[in-house]
């Protein structure tokens, strides 16, 4: 199952993953449009929310807007779960179903921000300064 991995001990909570995610998907600077979420709890704890490609959002979706894309990574039996925005009605069933609570609406429209692994090159992993994020192909 191709998915993101995390190492919270290495995370420095710089929010670069959120910001680069917003940049590569929407070409804006806005960490609230990230498909990775960093939660801070002072003084010294934090949590990373990442998409583990479990597919529960796809199961929950009444419109079948979330589908598996097998064209991106061919070494796996399972594809990447992606969102077809034209089919989405913004009902929010997928958000309720998400076990890691990473799937959230955009701040300015009723559309979930679904991680698509950057179509095979996750930029949050590439730009993390401390390698707190990683990804596996198997």
């Amino acid at each position, binding site marked *: 199952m191709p998915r993101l991995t995390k190492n919270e001990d290495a995370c420095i909570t*710089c929010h670069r993953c959120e910001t680069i995610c917003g940049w590569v998907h*929407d070409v804006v600077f*806005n960490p609230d449009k990230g498909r990775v979420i960093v939660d801070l709890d002072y*003084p010294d704890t934090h949590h990373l929310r990442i998409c583990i490609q479990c597919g529960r959002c796809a199961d929950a979706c009444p419109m079948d807007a979330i589908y598996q894309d097998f064209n991106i990574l061919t070494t796996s039996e399972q594809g990447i779960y992606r969102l077809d925005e034209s089919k989405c009605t913004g009902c929010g069933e997928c958000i309720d179903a998400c076990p890691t609570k990473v799937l959230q609406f955009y*701040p300015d429209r009723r559309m979930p921000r679904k991680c698509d692994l950057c179509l095979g090159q996750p930029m949050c992993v590439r730009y993390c300064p401390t390698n707190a994020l990683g990804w596996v192909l198997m």
Partner: protein
Amino acid sequence: MTGGGYAGRMLRLDLNELDFHVEALNEDDLERFIGGEGLGIKYLYDGVPAHADPLGPYNRLIFMTGPLTGTLAPTSGRHCVVTKSPLTCLETTSHAGGYWGSELKFAGYDGIIVEGQSEKPVYVFIDDEEVHFYKADGLWGRDTIQTDALIKRQLGDDKLNIAYIGPAGENLVKYASIQNDQQRAAARGGPGAVMGSKKLKAIAVRGTRDIRAADPAKYFQSMNELLDTCYGHVVTGSLFPSSGVTGIIPVMNEKGVLPTKNHYTGNFAGADKISGQTMAKTMLTKTRGCFCCTIHCTRVIDIEYGPYYGTRGKGPDYDSAVAFGSQCGNDNLEAIARANIVCDQYGLDTVSTGATIAWAMELYERGIIDDIDTHGVKLNWGNHEAMTSMVPKIATRAEFGAVLADGLDEASKRIGRGSERYVQSVKNMDLPGIEARGSKGMALGYATDNRGADNLRPFAATAECMGFRSKELGMPENFDPLSEEGKAQWMIPCQNYFAAVNSLVVCMFTVIAFTVEPSQYARHLSALTGFSFEKDKLLEAGERAWNLQRAFNAREGFTRKDDRLPHRLMEPLPNGPDKGSAVHLDRMLDEYYELRGWDKATGWPTPEKLRSLGLGDVARDLEKSRLLSGRALA
């Protein structure tokens, strides 16, 4: 509005009426002043009348972000606070990291101008478009950590970023800080007291809007170059991430520039015990970065042993470790960490607090003050229990703290008995963490800086003692840190560059070892904003900001006689590697004023200089106040 980088709007909060309005940024000003410190001093100069009371209703408190704030450039999470300082009565610009500045930008504002004075304590909640004023009666008197938790609970949002003052700011301690994100502080010069005088407890921000880049393709390329530069440099790529900023303490001690015992000397026997390397071995649990930071110098500590058991939070940075460590003759790192955290809790500037306690310790050791003055606190060198116990007393103006809370000038006047001889300050701002007798460029920097003694604009010790050189700022290959010759020649471009970087509002750590050169930032800024910036134009913007700060100070009546160093720096160093070295300031100053194009007698910018920088109206103002002061003298 321009292509990118800016949010394009300023928020004005009127605390007299508890009202707000939003205004657009002037595009001409953006190109001339960039943002941050430069634009902030413009708003301050235009908005605060000469000789206004810093703690009165006519002073303004200006929070500024820059074009790079909130973008993907390394260390873009900072904001700066520009105001008239109650400590120095001059302009002060203090910078803080964290996430507050970028959040403000995402809320759609490049800055906040706070005007007037509220009658009752209030706090402000900025939620994108909406601005709410709330009563802060229940928060008044609370420390910063409680304030943070209470506001988050009241507004029901854990993702808020909040800037607030602690009890020190409420009690108008003259070096109170404005804290944000719990342990980040805009502190030097006491902006917290200004915020306290306005009865503004906190500004909570939640922003979800977009910032755009003018030329995304070019921007992305230059952002990648910036990242490579920062990762590849020894300071930003390995020393600060692994050991923190306190990792340079052993080097500074070896070179004899670690100020010790109220600047008596420049080397400290216990330097290794307070260094970042020791911190990493004993109490470090993890590191943190500000927004989009690649350097992550912030240390998170947890002490699980000894008398300071249970101290958790952010660890001390370089200047705090020096102020509470070598300056107080204290080699107990746990005590330094506790004092640092208590300062953050009460909202005090760690550097000024440590330096003031060090001064009191010297007076106590010399017998100028005794147990009756200090209410029984035994302020001997290295008495760390006494040191940490003084911090809350200063913040709440209790006992001996009441004397120390008004800054060194006031305190020495109240104590008398020759105590002013031991005051180590420039323009009443306490000397920070470099012993200037071992680094003459730093001495010139202390004397000429517009906000008082300051070791970050520029951090000349990295050039003089650690050997880093900028290729583009005209620095000679070899120079002697102990010689006064030619310092002004390279200090002036450095000061301009640092002022420009402060106007971009990114972290000084990307430039203190000249990791990022001016042309690279100019390229990056052009791609982001759509203006065409080159190296020279960037440096000129810095020079313009520097001259305007100077003009603000000149309008307040400060002249060349205020560009002086404390007596102690003019006396030879008693020991250490630089034994016998003393600063001869006048030689450097003459050269400095000449190269700056300033009047050698007054130290003011000449009208020609101001006009060449496009500050003609400022030149007229200065001419007027020169006539006024001349008449007063006659």
